[in-house]
């Protein structure tokens, strides 16, 4: 893969997005390297989804600058979309299409990419090829959704809370798929509010709160920055980092 932008897969500077009086994103900046798995971590309402949707070109920021793969949304949208894989948080795929039909549909939008059969194998849904989407389990639906995002052999994969609501086994299965995508040189940006997910998958994480990054580093470094664990038996986690920074729990119910 050629490096046309100094190893930067995508970056944004000074992003601002307001909804009426609410400031969802407040001057946020990020730069993610090629081949990196980067996590946006934060509670609900922190601005993670707004940020990722601005990067995906689905939302226009009120202020700030976005560049993905050296291209810009206002000039190169179609070329850019051919090279990105996007999975949205709330998408429900059509109930009455089969797994294969759904994948074929998404595959048809891309000028390059894998065969549908390969995609099915990658996400371990070969056995469900002829099943209606409505008959799939939550984990299977999510894997199909990721397969649709992988249909064009993207350079960058954007995933918004890919494992929310899944059982532990389904989550691990999805992590495996993402790790294989990275092994092939892909770049991933994912949002999550699961600490363990960020620790397992991400090279670096940005902890987002109230529309801005309050900490950014490798998970291990962030945890180490806490200093000595207060309790011997307790292993430091990103949850502790967030608490130390904000005095609140990451998954606190609002």
């Amino acid at each position, binding site marked *: 893969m050629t490096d046309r932008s100094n190893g930067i897969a995508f970056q944004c500077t000074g992003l601002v997005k307001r909804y009426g009086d609410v400031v969802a994103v407040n001057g946020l900046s990020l730069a993610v390297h090629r081949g990196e798995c980067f996590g946006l971590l934060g509670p609900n309402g922190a601005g993670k989804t707004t940020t990722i949707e601005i990067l*995906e*070109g*689905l939302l226009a920021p009120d202020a700030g600058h976005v560049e993905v793969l050296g291209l810009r949304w206002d000039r190169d949208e*179609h070329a850019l*979309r*051919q090279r990105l894989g*996007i999975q*949205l948080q*709330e*998408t*429900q*795929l*059509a109930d*009455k*299409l089969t797994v294969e*039909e759904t994948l*074929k*549909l*998404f*595959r*048809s*939008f*891309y*000028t*390059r*990419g*894998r*065969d*549908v*059969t*390969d*995609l099915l194998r990658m996400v371990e849904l070969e056995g469900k090829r002829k099943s209606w989407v409505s008959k799939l389990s939550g984990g299977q639906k999510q894997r199909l959704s990721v397969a*649709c995002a992988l*249909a*064009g052999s993207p350079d960058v994969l954007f995933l918004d809370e890919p494992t929310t609501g899944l059982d532990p086994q389904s989550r691990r299965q999805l992590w495996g798929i993402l790790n294989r995508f990275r092994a092939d040189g892909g770049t991933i940006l994912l949002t999550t509010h699961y600490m363990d997910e960020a620790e397992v998958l991400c090279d670096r994480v940005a902890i987002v709160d109230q529309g801005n990054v309050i900490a950014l580093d490798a998970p291990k470094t962030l945890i180490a920055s806490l200093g000595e664990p207060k309790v011997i038996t307790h292993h430091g986690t990103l949850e502790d980092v967030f608490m130390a920074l904000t005095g609140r729990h990451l998954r606190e119910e609002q």
Partner: protein
Amino acid sequence: MSRGGASHPIVELSLARLREIFREPEALFWAFVFPILMSVAMAMAFPSSSNAPTRVGVRQAAGADSLMAILVESKTITPRLVVAEAEARALRDGDVDIVVVPGTPPTYRYDPARAESRAARLVVDDALKRAAGRTEPWTASDQLVSVPGSRYVDWLLPGLVGMGIVATSVWGIAFSIVQARMRKLLKRMVASPMRRSHYLLAQVLARMLFLLPEVAIPLLFGHYVIGMPMHGSIAALVFVSVAGALSTGGIGLLAASRAKTFEAISGMVNLIMLPMWIASGVFFSASRFPAAVQPFVQALPLTALVDSLRAVILEGASLASIAGELAILAAWGVIPFVIALRIFRWR
């Protein structure tokens, strides 16, 4: 271009839409079975009027028996005795077209607003006067002519087919789009390199493919089972059906261009469909509306479609002779479509 086992996006999008339609049994019922059930019911409720007897009520009173005897003689009259209290109800429900009150002379009770009742008065009056000894100056000879396609059901079926075309176009397209929007599927597709024009084109294309069975099944049933005539050319029929579906597809697109909930789209579509159901002459001739509202009635796309279908099917009209109707359909096809494209909400 290699697409990894997939076809062109327009093909895949159209196939996806068609599969969704054919996997929805309710949609098939409304499109195929409903027009047939409706025609059968109408054929039974409104039999060919030529041999329908005149239903006459005779008030139960002194002299009723002799009146009954006279009326029974006439082959075209079915008389029955009614008690005075039941008269109003029998007239209202159409159980009898007229009530004869015995007397010298007798009294006729009927509603002059009903054509059947006015005819019944002539028939009864004629029978009674003849029995009373009226001499005829002459007797005309009747030549009975049965014009094919003059039955109500022959006239109704093309109207039902037209209504089906419009309903499927507007409801079908509007609902599928709003559903995709609600499920964030529209947003997901826009996040992919899919061309937006491909999506909209596929909606219309899938609708066109669905049109074939939707028009063919009721018309074939009508022709071969009910005996509805088919005077026009198949090409003209196809042209008119496609024009009707394309035209109202634009309306469906416009209705769905902003709506985010089923409640919103249901209200919107009902608002569009209801005036057409009432005013477009599906069940009774649109010419019955007063002249003041005729411009409005004639401008409705369903009126233009139903008139065109009847002209082609029942009269064998050429496309040139229905150019006015086709122009109305074209206008409805273009204007809402252009507006829809401008205001369409993809998220």
